[in-house]
């Protein structure tokens, strides 16, 4: 059924259709709407889940970790300071291979305190062992939730998934979203049946110590599971497309890349603006294209390198920065192109931090600068 709703509502309705047994989160702007919608559904008796209130994000993450270990499908959501308060537990969730799904509504990190959008929060936990998917539209916010549970709970993966959506731009932006029927979702997403769970009747120890003799192997197992997810993500996206009749998710999306000489690489809602800019530039005879990263962790090196094979100059637009180095996507992309033996020249640009608007003009400026100075972390729109 099509409805005119916020991205937050699209996430909440998708989560409800996946029927998690336990939901826990702590309110933080701009994530709050998602859990408010879910709390309403539970309170109104429309969703049979336990919605458990907690005193912090650290507790919310710990609670869903425990509930997941007890065999329940679980959901949490956070933003910014809340996400980094969770970070200790995020590493545990991944290390214990719990298929938790969490929505990160992307927001800048303090200080200075700033509640607006960039992607520094999810980028700060990119090494936690979570799969990270970035949505472009309100529709994709919901669609990625279904795919996230399928992926996380696949026996060969068993890795938590973070669905990232840009704060306000997606979370509070209203769009027409096609919300599927429960029967359709049930066909796509089977019930969660873990091979092992915490049960007083059959005691198990989850998360025991691993010393120098096995820690390395256990970390390798997690890495290998994430690399394996690179194969599964496109096949789940293809299944989704067959079931629901629209394309959502996958590793990457190429937009007018086939004959592109210049390309931008980016993730999230900014890709909508970039597509508009590319359409305008194409009319002026500039062969511009976009490579949209949907999956950022695991990083799809081979797909990225193949998609950019014929492109001469690549600009990476990061809405986050590893301070003192480069944008995180820039670093991964440059590495991928070296290994892929691509000849492209790659520049890195930092834009939109703390909610600074990225307009079609900003994108035009990046394409213009791409023909000039070589930079690895060039700030765009910096006031002199």
């Amino acid at each position, binding site marked *: 059924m099509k409805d005119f709703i916020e991205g937050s509502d699209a996430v909440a309705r998708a989560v409800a259709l996946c029927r998690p047994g336990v939901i826990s989160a702590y309110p933080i702007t701009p994530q709050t709407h998602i859990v408010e919608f879910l709390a309403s559904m539970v309170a109104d008796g429309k969703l049979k889940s336990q919605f458990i209130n907690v005193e912090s994000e650290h507790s919310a993450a710990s609670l869903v970790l425990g509930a997941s270990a007890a065999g329940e499908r679980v959901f949490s959501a956070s933003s910014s300071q809340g996400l980094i308060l969770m970070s200790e537990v995020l590493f545990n969730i991944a290390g*214990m291979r719990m298929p938790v799904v969490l929505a990160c509504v992307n927001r800048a990190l303090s200080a200075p305190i700033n509640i607006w959008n960039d992607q520094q929060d999810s980028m700060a936990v990119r090494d936690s062992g979570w799969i990270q998917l970035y949505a472009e539209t309100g529709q994709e916010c919901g669609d990625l939730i279904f795919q996230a549970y399928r992926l996380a709970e696949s026996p060969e993966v068993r890795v938590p998934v973070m669905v990232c959506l840009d704060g306000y731009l997606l979370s509070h932006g209203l769009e027409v979203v096609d919300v599927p029927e429960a029967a359709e979702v049930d066909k796509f997403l089977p019930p969660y049946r873990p091979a092992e769970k915490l049960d007083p009747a059959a*005691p198990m120890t*989850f998360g*025991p110590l691993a010393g120098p003799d096995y820690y390395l192997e256990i970390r390798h*197992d997690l890495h290998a599971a994430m690399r394996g997810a690179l194969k599964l993500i496109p096949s789940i996206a293809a299944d989704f497309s067959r079931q629901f009749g629209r394309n959502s998710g996958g590793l990457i999306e190429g937009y007018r890349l086939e004959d592109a000489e210049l390309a931008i690489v980016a993730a999230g809602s900014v890709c909508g603006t970039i597509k508009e800019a590319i359409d305008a530039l194409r009319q002026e005879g500039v062969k511009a294209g976009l490579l949209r990263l949907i999956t950022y962790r695991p990083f799809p090196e081979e797909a990225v390198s193949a998609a950019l094979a014929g492109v001469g100059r690549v600009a990476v637009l990061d809405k986050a920065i590893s301070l003192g180095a480069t944008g995180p996507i820039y670093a991964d992309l440059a590495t991928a192109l070296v290994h892929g033996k691509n000849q492209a020249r790659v520049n890195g640009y930092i834009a939109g931090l703390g909610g600074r608007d990225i307009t079609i003009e900003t994108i035009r400026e990046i394409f213009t600068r791409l023909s000039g100075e070589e930079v690895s972390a060039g700030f765009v729109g910096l006031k002199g």
Partner: protein
Amino acid sequence: MSININSRPGSARNNRTGSWRVDRRPKFLRQNCIACRLCLLICPEGIITGKAKNSFETDYVYCKGCGLCAAVCPKKDIEMIPEDTETEG
């Protein structure tokens, strides 16, 4: 390799920590014991058993030879003896 990161309860019993002993083990003399149970309570391995006077013993499969039982005994009825003297028991 794929390692099962979850484990069954009681698996620590598989670590036969008696092999950690370096050169001494406790010997329960069973002469002046008053059954105060301090040795049983202080043992970090929880392997000292016994109820009546002069009935206490340890499990050498797990005893690490830390010597706390001998140190805490108010009657000096537990002695740390070299590993290469006498048989265990």
